[in-house]
């Protein structure tokens, strides 16, 4: 049996998970916005320049499909320390945050469905076989699996990238993407050292104020984002030199960061700037303030330039 072979559920469990999933699916936007509003409140960004509902729309349209594409669907590789994974959500995270997403958001129908399921399967977090089956079945729905990405974008550990998106959607996305791939240590000196760049732009060194610092960057945020991308390219090249233990990962890392012309972080930058900031396909119903802010942001990114050492 391959590690990509999905688990098999007995009919009763499948029915129960599917019933719960149908309740979640019909409320997925509401859950996402509740999570996002929490991030905004906790980050101290009181007056977002772009509304949370539009950012959730951007996440659903552009960001989440790209992340899910890179993460793949089901994997339960014995050598993967994360263990069973469905659409980028590992079993451990799934168990730990299930209640946070579906109960703590306090949306009545969702809460009831989750509580009923927990009562019916009180040991599902202790039984990994059962946990894997539930993870697979529930996250077959891409929108539901996307809630974990939104939770990630709303997390304090990543310094509230969703709040940063209210000022600069790409900068917030890029912060979250790097945290997703490398962990929150991405900011520190042992990883990409984004903190060093931020200090050059006037950050006070307090991680709790990082999101607010990014929001206050204003027109400089596009330039700041480009510095972060270059910093990450340099870091990947440094730690994946031929012969090193990470050499095998270099191609994949570079593809995801810059080399894949359609789904890399850089390609996503263009998508976000063209489709969201400049709203070139009229996909989003922005109000005049949002349009004005994003238009300026879109023009700033037109000057984006990536300097790669050869």
């Amino acid at each position, binding site marked *: 049996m391959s590690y990509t072979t999905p688990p098999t559920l007995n009919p009763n469990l499948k029915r129960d998970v599917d019933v719960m999933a149908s309740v979640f699916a019909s409320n997925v936007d509401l859950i996402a916005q509740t999570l996002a509003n929490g991030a905004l409140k906790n980050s101290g960004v009181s007056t977002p320049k772009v509304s949370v509902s539009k950012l959730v729309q951007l996440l659903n349209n552009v960001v989440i499909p790209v992340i899910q594409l890179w993460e793949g669907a089901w994997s339960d590789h014995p050598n993967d320390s994360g263990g069973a994974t469905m659409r980028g959500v590992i079993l451990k995270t799934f168990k730990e945050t299930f209640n946070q997403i579906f109960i703590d958001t306090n949306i009545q129908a969702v809460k009831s469905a989750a509580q009923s399921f927990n009562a019916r399967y009180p040991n599902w977090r202790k039984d990994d076989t059962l946990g894997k089956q539930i993870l697979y079945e529930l996250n077959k729905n891409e929108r539901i699996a996307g809630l974990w990405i939104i939770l990630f974008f709303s997390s304090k550990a990543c310094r509230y990238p969703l709040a940063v998106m209210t000022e600069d959607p790409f900068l917030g996305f890029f912060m979250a993407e790097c945290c997703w791939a490398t962990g929150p240590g991405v900011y520190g000196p042992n990883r990409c050292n984004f903190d060093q760049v931020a200090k050059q732009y006037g950050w006070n060194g307090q991680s709790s104020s990082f999101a607010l610092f990014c929001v206050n960057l204003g027109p400089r945020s596009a330039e700041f984002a480009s510095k972060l991308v270059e910093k990450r390219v340099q870091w990947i090249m440094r730690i994946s030199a031929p012969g090193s233990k990470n050499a095998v990962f270099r191609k994949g890392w570079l593809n995801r960061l810059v080399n894949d012309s*359609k789904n890399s972080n850089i390609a996503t*930058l263009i*998508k976000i700037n063209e489709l969201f900031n400049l709203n070139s396909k009229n996909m989003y119903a922005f109000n005049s303030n949002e349009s004005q802010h994003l238009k300026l942001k879109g023009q700033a990114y037109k000057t984006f330039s990536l*300097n790669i050492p050869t």
Partner: protein
Amino acid sequence: MNYSYEQLKQGLESRGGLSSVQGTAPAASAEAVAINIPELEPVELPMEDLSYTTNIQGSQQDLNLLLSLKDGNGGKQNNYGSSQLILNSDRVILNSRADYLMLFGEKGVAISSPNHVNIDADESVTIFGDGGLFLGVPGKGTLQGNQKPPKTKGDPTVDGNYEPLVLGTKLANLIEDLLVIIKNATILTPVGKGYFREDTMYELACLQARIPEILSTYGYIDGISHEVPDPQPQPPSTLAPEETTVVGTVVGTSTAPTTSSPSVPTQQVTNPLADNNTFFNTQTLYNDPLD
């Protein structure tokens, strides 16, 4: 090299990345990649899968994954991230006609087979590890039939992952010394020194004669690297008095030990608690007349 926004946008548009907002599978080839960071190109290996999984540290691993070979166009692609040489054939023979055959590996050398591995030599085989010689992977071997390793560890000595080997000559000497001490032992009795009878001495001598049998004439291990003995205990400062001399005359008669069955008391055995009101009368076991 500098990549401008317009260049990046053209790269995305040429792949149709702006016409559909949904992510699609990453391109397998790099022909339309806008950015060209120097990378290690995949090497296509038009060959069949390596044929088996191998047991490493007690767990089965797919050789294809182990060698960083992934499915590519028409065969396998080298995702190792550096150069690697793979010989994959129905049979592979390496033969050195006049001098040594040498295998060296910076990180290690792995020799594996799903069946058997034989190392033969007309003269001798020496296995040396600077950090020690370990045989087996603890608790990982497949045992015969349904036999399972014990779940509870040993008592009173808790199992360790590895235990030291025993040195044959030293063990033989130890057993021999033990037997000599037993044979020469002085046993104090109320009427003086005692010794083993001749037949017991004979048995001990037979045991002593079997000691060389435990020493292999074929397999040897390093005889220098071993633990040191514990400190010797202090010898006794005083010894028991020399033999006691009993002087006198014993008067009386003796009879040979009886070989008949012991006599059974005639009176009935009653339970001393039978008169107690709180005594709980149980069913007697094996028809034993308790009351």
